[in-house]
């Protein structure tokens, strides 16, 4: 009789009306949102890129600001999905009881979790496009290969939305999210080649770095912005996809458990 919380996800297109609901909410505050997506990477790239970059030699055959631009794409898209999945997702689940309202309609929890991931990933795509525009305007990338940044932003978004939802499913309140940002997101940013090449790290940390999803995002983004095809792109895509799928399933199981109360 008891429903199985470990059941295979039941996926359908019923998540689309929820995606549209989130889009309608976002549209009301689109101005500040887009400004944030643009201003953040500009500040990082100009500040660190020119400030710090002025004192540095070329890294991996490119200027520091060009090196940093790939890191910024990944860092920004990761953050967009993470904030959406954690803070906004928690508001919809807990504070505003939006999920509760939706669950009274012919939409299931599986659809809702899928909608959260799709929506958070959409925010990543928006963020990825914003950073790409900044990169183009600053003249840091020219090749059509750089357009691959857009699908990459989607993949990075799906990955970090799924991982973030695991934290949301476990969170008793907003304070809980500090653990995730302090213990996962910040170290990831420093270990995954966003600001400096991973080979600068001690061997042990390089091994850790190779297991983290952001490393694989950076490994894809950096050559794409430098007019080159990433060497191990199949493996990188596989790792990001794997994190997304496992994250989706684990978060769904945790939400099923949480909402069965």
């Amino acid at each position, binding site marked *: 009789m008891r*429903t199985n919380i470990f059941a295979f996800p039941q996926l359908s297109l019923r998540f689309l009306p*929820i995606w549209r*609901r989130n889009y309608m909410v976002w549209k009301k505050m689109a101005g500040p949102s887009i400004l944030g997506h643009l201003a953040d990477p500009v500040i990082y790239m100009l500040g660190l890129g020119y400030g710090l970059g002025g004192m540095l030699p070329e890294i991996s055959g490119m200027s520091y600001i060009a090196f940093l631009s790939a890191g910024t794409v990944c860092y920004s898209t990761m953050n967009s999905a993470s904030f959406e999945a954690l803070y906004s997702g928690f508001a919809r689940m807990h504070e*505003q009881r939006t999920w509760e*309202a939706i669950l*009274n309609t*012919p939409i*299931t929890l599986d659809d809702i979790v899928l909608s959260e991931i799709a929506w958070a990933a959409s925010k990543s795509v928006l963020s990825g496009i914003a950073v790409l525009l900044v990169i183009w305007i600053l003249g840091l990338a020219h090749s059509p290969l750089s357009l691959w940044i857009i699908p990459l932003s989607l993949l990075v978004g799906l990955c970090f939305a799924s991982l973030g939802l695991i934290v949301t499913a476990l969170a008793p309140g907003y304070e809980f999210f500090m653990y995730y940002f302090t213990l996962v997101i910040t170290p990831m940013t420093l270990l995954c080649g966003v600001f400096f090449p991973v080979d600068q790290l001690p061997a042990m940390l390089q091994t850790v770095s190779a297991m983290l999803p952001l490393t694989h995002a950076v490994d894809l983004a950096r050559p794409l912005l430098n007019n080159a095809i990433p060497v191990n792109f199949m493996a990188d895509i596989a790792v990001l996809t794997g994190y997304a799928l496992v994250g989706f399933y684990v978060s769904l199981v945790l939400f099923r458990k949480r909402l069965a109360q």
Partner: protein
Amino acid sequence: MSFVSIVIHAQGLLKIYAGQRVVDGISLEIKHGECFGLLGPNGAGKTTTLRLLLGLIAPDAGEISLLGQAIPQQAREARLRIGVVPQMDNLDPDFTVAENLLVYGSYFGMTDAAIEARLPELLEFANLTHKRDVKVPTLSGGMKRRLTLARALVNDPDVIFLDEPTTGLDPQARHLIWQRLRELTARGKTLVLTTHFMDEAERLCHRLAVMDNGRIISQGTPRELIADNIEPQVVEVFGEQAADWAKSHAANHTERFEISGESVFCYVRDAHPLLLELQQHPKLRYVHRPANLEDVFLKLTGREMRE
């Protein structure tokens, strides 16, 4: 039509949370077009029963059929024809009144055009036509509740579940909700509501089930519940000496009495001898009235606070 169809059938429902039987062997049959009330103190298991009937949680034992669909297995299909008014407000605070209805309708797979066509009727039903483009946080409590009711009707459901629909509303707002709910039953909708307001249950519900500790302890029409459970007349006696009077005299003139602080509730089949007796004690004040659901409720579930 003399044919009476059963809209909801539940048999032997059991739900256990942390070793406690929150719903403990509930069986119900709710007929098409009736307003059925679940009555009980806080923590009696009313909301859990509703959540079981809607298929939002799975029972640990028992069977449910809702509009011919097995619950929770076919809950999604059943919910296409169900409306829900939850206990806690969960309207979308970022949206206007109209946007709330449009977005909610889209969850049922309705097209924007189909929902737009229903909007004027829904807004009028909720007395919110003039608030169409106003954002939710600026609405009063009564308006929010009416919008929640309109939202539950967006898919033109056959059955509407309402969890404490008037809790927290002022009397004017409450009466308007009651009027609207009566209009819905007049249109042939089936209503299932929980409440702990006896006047609400007495006015609205064709049939009631009184719940306590996860069980149904009495079931029937409001009149049947009163006739089955309690003496028809009540005399409430007040005053400082009421308790003393009751201890020495009440037993001789009543079928049953209860002392609660400075009030004494006397339950009688014939109030005449008791009223004559009370006239001998000029310092006692009293009110004579017919027994009501609240008397039944307090008899069945006790007078002590539930916290």
